[in-house]
């Protein structure tokens, strides 16, 4: 009975901290056979050897495309594996994408057995996704489109001209000076800050 209920779970994640946290959570929930696989070139062979019921994979891993192949060549694994994220559960798909994880399960495995595993995976991946997002936001505080928009607004106000004209003017200057329009935009913002 014990054996029959113990799902084999393969976890493909190159973030060791996140993998350890998830593995611990899965074990605490009674899933003892969790195998972590490195994101390496012989992934298919490793999966074949483990013959998992569930595969959890970091969305950042390019090896997702390797797993996709298993469904096309069913003889490469003992049992055909199907993607869990069927469209009837859009909320879970959204949550999984936001958290940065995807799951594959053996065809025919009951959904109610897999759902808690996926929910836990999403909840363990989420803090990492949040952190990454915060870092990205900080980095792109003044990315090109934002700088251009801000500069455009400054020009519109300073010269009392409409948006298209302000943009055309910046573009004209950029072309004349052989610079990127974002560079021109940043100079406008800097100048405006100096003259404030």
């Amino acid at each position, binding site marked *: 009975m014990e054996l029959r209920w113990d799902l084999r779970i393969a976890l493909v994640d190159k973030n060791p901290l996140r993998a350890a946290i998830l593995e611990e959570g899965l074990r605490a929930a009674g899933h003892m056979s969790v195998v972590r696989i490195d994101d390496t070139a012989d992934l298919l062979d490793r999966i074949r050897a483990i013959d998992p019921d569930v595969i959890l994979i970091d969305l950042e891993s390019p090896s997702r495309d390797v797993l996709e*192949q298993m469904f096309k060549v069913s003889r490469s694994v003992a049992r055909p594996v199907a993607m869990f994220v069927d469209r009837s559960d859009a909320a879970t798909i959204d949550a999984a994408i936001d958290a940065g994880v995807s799951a594959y399960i053996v065809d025919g495995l009951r959904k109610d057995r897999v759902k808690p595993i996926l929910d836990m995976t999403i909840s363990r991946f989420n803090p990492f996704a949040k952190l990454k997002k915060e870092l990205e936001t900080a980095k792109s505080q003044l990315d090109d489109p934002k700088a251009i928009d801000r500069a455009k607004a400054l020009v519109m106000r300073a010269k009392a001209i409409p948006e298209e004209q302000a943009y055309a003017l910046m573009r004209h200057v950029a072309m004349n000076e052989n610079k990127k329009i974002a560079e021109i935009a940043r100079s406008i913002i800097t100048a405006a800050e100096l003259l404030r």
Partner: protein
Amino acid sequence: MTKRLRIGYVPLTDAALLHVAKAQHFAAARGVEIELVADSSWANIRDKLVAGHFDAAHMLAPAAIAVSLGIDQIEAPLVAPVALGLNGNAITVSKVLFEALLQEAQDDIADPRVTSKALARIVARRRAAGEAPLTFGHVFPFSSHHYQLRLWLRAGHLDPDEDVRLVVVPPPFMVWTLRKGQLDGFCVGAPWNSLAVAAGAGTLLHQRTNIVRDCPEKVLAFRAEWARSHGDDVRALAGAVDDASRWAAAPGNRNSLRTLLTSTAWQDMSPWTIERVLADPTSTSGPAVVETGLQLDEDAIKADPAQALWLYAQMVAAGQTIYSPVQAEAAAAVYAPALGPSISRPAATPVAFDGPAFSPNDIASYLVALHASS
């Protein structure tokens, strides 16, 4: 304020037109702001587009068709109003296999007919000696890379499913896998062939358009439903790609194109490598051609349904689906030039180096002839 659209892409040379459309403000000029989001796998691109996390995506043309037909993991009707280029793949083999092919080849090694037959002899000898089958890498089950490998193998009367192993290898792992001896060759796009050669791991066997001339590659894909309700955005974006393709084809813009690719598409790659990828001393057709023959001009972006039908025929030949006229019609409908820029010149139909000529009006005969010839 202009509208912001999220477009997913995989950092490859053939995402170039999207970078141009953004950096040269072609999209902004048409009233849409592009946010380009790099992703690491074709499966992610597919899932995020279908789930609505992307408004549009740089997508393998056959993958867009497969999703629309419901023969991939998820079923969702997609449309491609414009393509993002033609050609661009090359076959690279390990140094060991290249030496063996040189020994075995009875004629010009640049001719894929010669190499496919030489390969067949190598495969037969290995089998007789009880050695493991040769392994070739491509990028996704539904990819022209996969189909190009199959066409090459078939020309040597090899069964792609029995006589060799075909495996998906993420491009960033290709060179390493080839060097480790886990792969004997692969078919990928730029810049990965150049990288393998530069790293001394392999030899470029068939480049440019040797296997398939005018081979469809990536498209700009949308959810069909979204495209219906956002017709103006779709037209604006497809129009910006058209502007970008004319810009990229202008000889005077080559340096700017290289600079753009250096700063956007390949941030982790050295300028030396990019120079190698773009360098093409033999080219006479302008600046937008890279080492592997990637074509970015206006002739290369028309989403002609005949190209979708050619890809559909390759899917059937690969055993990924079973031919039906209804399915063929659905595949053709994924390419929706009516939603894209009006390009009056007809698009070229793909021509493989071997096998029967393809006619979009008679796929059944093409498939029968293809089967008989291999």
